Each structure stands twice: as C-alpha cells, then as structure tokens.
C-alpha cells in the first residue's frame, strides 16, 4: 500500500533538482569553512585566545565559544569584528594585527566547535536572512513563523532550538535528506476516489493524522483507504537560487528562531 510518489508528482522536483544541481555543485564548498582554515584556527586560538578564554572556550562568564554561546555576536561578521576591534569595556584587547585570513580561520575553528575534524557552517546576518526568508528565498510561501505564513509546511517559529547550523544547511540544500520522517508528505486516495495530499502529523497502526494542502486537520482510517502513500521525498525545493552568503544569512535567521 505504501509506496513512493508517482512519477507525475516527482517530475517537477526532479527537474528542479537537476536544474539546481549544476548551480549548487560549483558553490557548495563555499557554504563551509575548509579543514585547512579550521586547522589554522586551532593554532591561532592556542596562541592568542586560550589564555583568557581557556582551552575549552568557556572561561569567560556568559561565553562558551565551543558551543556557540556569545554575549553579542550572532553572525560570522560579528565574530570577526569582535576579534579585530576587541571589546574594550569588557577588557578584551583588539587583535588588529591579525590578517583577515587569520580572523577567518579563528571564526572557522569556533564554528567547528573546536573540532578540527568537524564541519564549520558559515553563519551570516540574521536581519538579511529574515528579508530573504520573506522574499527571494521563497521560504514564507509555505512556512509559518510566529503566527505569519501558511501552515502546510512545518512551522519554523522554534526551529533554531531543535536544529544545528549544519542540519539547517543540509535542510536547505538537500531537503529530502534532512526531512524528519514524521514530516513526510502523504498522498491518500479515499474509497470514493477522492485524492488528498498533505503532511503527516501523526500515525499509528490503524490511523494517520495529516494537515492537508488546505490546512485542514484530517484523520483517516487506513483500512478505509484505496491508496495511502508516504513519500521520502520532500516537497520543498532546494535553496539553490541563493548565493553562499545568502544561504549563510538564512541559516543565521533560522538559528535565532527559538
């Protein structure tokens, strides 16, 4: 009974995927810092920062660099600015002597969670991200945030609480691979031949609960259905029209939603 989406359904997604795959492959590496940068960041951190911030980055109260907890900074640019200019009020000196590549390396090391084998996702400006979310990126066409927007896709009002930056990046670039199984799209054909599409909200052995594309909360008894398909393919298109910087901005915005 349960099967993949029909060809007709996945065709538009496939076209989109192919279209964007070529665009994405060129810029994909730009979304993350390179292992070389992270490695260089470790050396710089040990030399310049660890005396005050400590080997784990948590010696200053209210700050845990390794876990991404800062007093003021949100975006990577903020971090770079703090490093370069210092925080005179709080006693942090300016590291104006560092080259911009060095500052980038430090940010990379912090974003990688102090893990030289880890991945460091670039985090841009949340304000610009919010604008993109509502506009060019097209997120607001399906997602709702803080009471604004449609309910067909998952509400993102607290998405920053349950997802990390790498998980958000993955969700934006390859939605199907990051979609939690519960959110999978459902296609139902009732006994009288009516087709209903929606997003799964809950399921058990005998029933399934969905919100359909008209935002109705519906429960179906599985035994009463002619067809019941749960797809592993997300209906969300990959955010490949965004530049690397724009992607970092959207991630920054999503991280603030909690």
């Amino acid at each position, binding site marked *: 009974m349960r099967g993949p989406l029909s060809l007709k359904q996945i065709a538009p997604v496939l076209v989109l995927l192919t279209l964007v795959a070529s665009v994405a492959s060129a810029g994909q590496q730009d979304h993350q810092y390179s292992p070389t940068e992270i490695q260089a960041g470790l050396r710089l951190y040990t030399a310049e920062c660890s005396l005050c911030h400590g080997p784990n980055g948590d010696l200053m109260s209210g700050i845990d660099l390794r876990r991404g907890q800062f007093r003021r900074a949100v975006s990577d640019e903020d971090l770079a600015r703090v490093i370069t200019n210092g925080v005179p009020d709080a006693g942090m000196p300016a590291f104006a002597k560092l080259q911009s590549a060095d500052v980038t390396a430090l940010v990379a090391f912090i974003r990688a969670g102090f893990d030289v084998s880890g991945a460091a996702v670039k985090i841009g400006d949340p304000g610009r991200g919010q604008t993109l979310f509502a506009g060019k990126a097209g997120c607001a066409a399906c997602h709702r945030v803080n009471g604004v927007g449609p309910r067909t896709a998952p509400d993102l009002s607290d998405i920053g609480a*349950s*997802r*990390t930056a790498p*998980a958000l990046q993955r969700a934006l670039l390859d939605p199907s*691979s*990051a*979609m*939690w*199984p*519960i959110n999978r799209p459902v296609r139902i054909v009732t006994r009288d031949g009516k087709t209903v599409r929606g997003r799964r*909200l*809950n*399921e*058990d*052995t*005998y029933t399934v609960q969905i919100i359909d594309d008209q935002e109705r909360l519906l429960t179906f008894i599985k035994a009463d259905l002619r067809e019941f398909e749960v797809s*592993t393919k997300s209906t969300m298109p990959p955010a490949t029209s965004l530049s690397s910087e724009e992607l970092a901005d959207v991630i920054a915005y999503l991280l603030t939603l909690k």
Partner: protein
Amino acid sequence: MAMTIKSFGRVVFIALVITLSYRLQAQVTYDRILKAAAEPHNWLTYGGNYTSQRYSLLTQITPSNVAQLEQKWMLQDQVFGAWQSNPLVVDGVMYVTERPNDVMAVDAKTGRVYWLYRYAPAPESKVCCGANNRGVAVLGDTLYMGTLDAHLVAIDAKNGKPLWNVAVADVKLAYSITLAPLVVKDKVIIGVGGGEYGIRGFIAAYDAKTGKEAWRFYTIPGPGEPGHDSWRGEDWKYGAASVWVTGSYDPDLNLTYWGVGNPGPDWNPSQRPGDNLYSDSVVALDADTGKLKWHFQFTPNDGYDYDSVQVPVLADISWKGTPTKVMMWANRNGYFYVLDRATGKFLLGNNFVKVNWASGLDEKGRPIQTPQPNGMPTWPGNQGGTNWYPPAFSPRTGLFYLSAWENYSTIYRRESATYQPGGNFMGGGPGPNTPVPGAPSVGIGRRSPINNWTDAVGNGAVMAIDPQTGKPKWKVTQFDVTDGGMLTTASDLLFTGGREGYFHALDARTGKVLWKASLGGQIVMAPITFQVEGKQYVSVISGHNLVTYALRD
C-alpha cells in the same frame, strides 16, 4: 420494636443477597499455587502459574463473542510514570502495585479499593530506567513485595499492614528490586536490580513466615566457584548480572529458573574480557538450596545490554517425537531458543528479527559473534528484539507469542568506566540510528502521544513462533514499537497491546485482529484474566488506567 412480617421478609432478602455475594475466600496454600492452572478464576502468580505460560483455561470469552466485550470498570493510579504492574487475583480480590511501592487490594468485580498500603523507599534508591514495581506474590494470607530500596516486605492481605520487612541488599550500593517475587513451598524467591551501577547480582530465598534468608545464589561466581574464571581480576566484584524479572518453577524437577541481566559496564565488553558468567544466562537452581543445577548463556561477553531477563516459559511438548520438558525463550538478543529444562541442553535457536551482532549459533547454541565496526549500527538495537514484557504459550495451538521490535538498531559508544560504589557503571552508551541525523528515536517507554520517530526507526510486531521450527507462523505488525505482554486462553484468543494504547484480541491461531479498544495510554505489561461469580473478566493496564472488560450483561 416488633418487626412486621413485611420488614422481616426484607431483612431475610437482604441477608440472602449478602450471603450470595460472599465469595469463597480461602488461604492461598502452596498446594493451590502448585495447581494454579486448575483454578483459572484466579491469577495466583506473576505468570499465571509456575509454567509462566500465561495461558488460561477460561473460555467464556471466545473468538465469536469477543466483539461483545465492554468496559466494566477502570482504576486510575495516582502517581506519575509508566505502570508496569502485574495484578494477582485471589477469590475476587485483586492485588496490584503502583509506583513506587504502593499496594492496593481491589474488588475484582467493581474496581473499588479495599485498602492501600504505601511503602516509602529510601530517598537514595536508584533505578536506571524507572521506579517500577511489577507486582506482589501471595502465600496464605500474606503478600510479598520487593522494594526500590532492595527490601522485601510481607503485608497482611486482609488489611494491608506490614508484617515484616528485611533488607535484601544495600541501597547505598544501588541495589533495588522491581520484580514480583515468586513463592515456592515455604519460601519467597527474589532477585536484585542495579545492572547499570556495578552491583554483584544474586537470587535469594526468604522464609515466608519470618523473613529469614534461606539461601542466596550469586549470579557472578566468587573465587573458587565454577565459572569464576570467566571474569578477569576484580571485574566479578562489580560485574552487574542483575535479576529483574520473575522466574518459573518445575515442581517435578524442583528447579526454579531465572533470567540474568547484562554484565557491567554495559557497553564496554573489552573492559571485562571473558564470558562473564552468569550474565545474560538462564540459571536453573534447586528450589530448596539455591544450588546451581545448570546454566545456559545466551550472550557471552555482551556489549549490547542484551539482558536475559525474559520470563522462562515452561512446557511439556513432543520434541522430535519424544515427550520433552522444554523451556522456550525469545531473547533480547534477537534469537528464539528451545532448551531441555532438565539438563539445559540447547535444542533449537533461530533469530526472529534481523541480527548482525552474530552470524548464527553453533551446535551448542553459542553465538558466533560479529561485532560491527565503530559507528556502524547493530541489529537488534539496545532495547532488543524483545525485552522483559511477558510472552505466552498455548498448549492448544502449540505457538509461543511475543512482542518483537523489528527494523530497529543502535549505534554504540564504548568508553572505559571506573567503578565507584553506588555510581553509574555503564562504559559508554547507545545512540540512535535514524534516517536523518538528529531525528527523534525510540527509547524506554513512549514519551509523547505524537509518534514523531515513526516506523523509520523500528516497528512493533506480535509474533507467533512455532517452537518446533523456531520460525514465526504468523505476525501482526504495529506502526510503533511495543512493550505489550501476552495473555492467551483455551478459547484460542490472544490478548495484548502496545505503546499506541490499542488493546487487541487476536485469533491465536491466525493472528487475525478480532476486537480492539483504543485506550490511549501505553500498555507495558501483559493482560490477565479471571472469573468472579461466573463471569470472565480481562484486565489490562494502559497508561494510568487499569481497565477491566467482560461480556455485555
């Protein structure tokens, strides 16, 4: 004042009604427990009788009338947390425990409570996986309960007052008792939990009258005892091997059988080289002396927390043409076993779910272990192919019934652990294997009415295994995993439930779902059946409710 004829008649009528509603209430002698199967209107031991078959001779409810079941009463517990208790029923009175160590005497016909006994376990009580109590045992007019602070308490069954209370083990070393005791002859047999805290497990028997310890069998052999060399150095002192599910008893052989839990630290087997006897084993003990007659180890040097605390199910069946006293065992490690229970000889073993920690069993039933590389998933996962929830066996259908977890795996993290008295001693931990990193996964008990982990991380199944082949004859899958126990009857019904809160009646021969009720709360114990005043009842605990059904009046 003179009584009129009319009022006299009323008094006689009332007296008659009272007399009729009195039920024959007698002491539960050992002889009655021994022959518990012959009085199916009662439920006298954890597993129904000493075979632990959970098979009842009551036949009022049948496949053709089961759809006429209606709810007769409901009892709500007053505490927080999963309700895993197995009620007993003695001549119309039900005895059921609730967390942490409350006992209630309940009228089995109406669900109204006669008395409530509250035992407050010491605040330092420590249990890894829930403040569970799985029920009491009865002998004479006395109930016996193990407590979270590792005491054994005798309670007057008529008024709920404690009679005696003995310390079974030291709560400061994180010993606890969650199982229902087993009474054999004049003794109360009990086992201890604490498998995540470096205890040295044991099974012990106490004089039912006085609470004096009669014997003790350590589930980890000490220096000089056979099996001691299956441990290195001091490891045996804190090697766990807890006992947290009730055993069975064969009166002809005078052997009592108990399943033993995981070795400690749970997830770092390289830290405790050797087979680690008698962890993950079944031990057959002389019921009078506690002396070991035989043992069979399911998972030597376990690194997956595959406790073998499943209920030993005993049956006398024809095995390759010869009447044989067997023991059937669907193990947490994913294999179903048939053993000769007189000798412990391995007769058959077959995996009932996907298994990749072993490539099979050798001719003696020992697994050929195939540990997975670091970071790779192991099937079945940490909660196992099945677990502590009681299975059932029907001599009529010849089938063994269990709840299984299918398509469920775990990625293990292994770390070295240092033993500190009473402290955690686990050596790493289990991590979920989800289709998307960070997605929700299953755990111990249901955490939400929304199944946001889905069958992508595992699904439940009711399985009926033919012990002659070790293969499922039928199975019914469930969307969520299940901790439902089994009850089967001589009318070929099978009652069970699961985490989704459905209570099912299935055709025991085919698995066809004949009737179901949506009770909403997770069913994490087996249903029981009993009869009062000629009416058969079925009770099941779902969430915080003990619900009792019977046919429509």
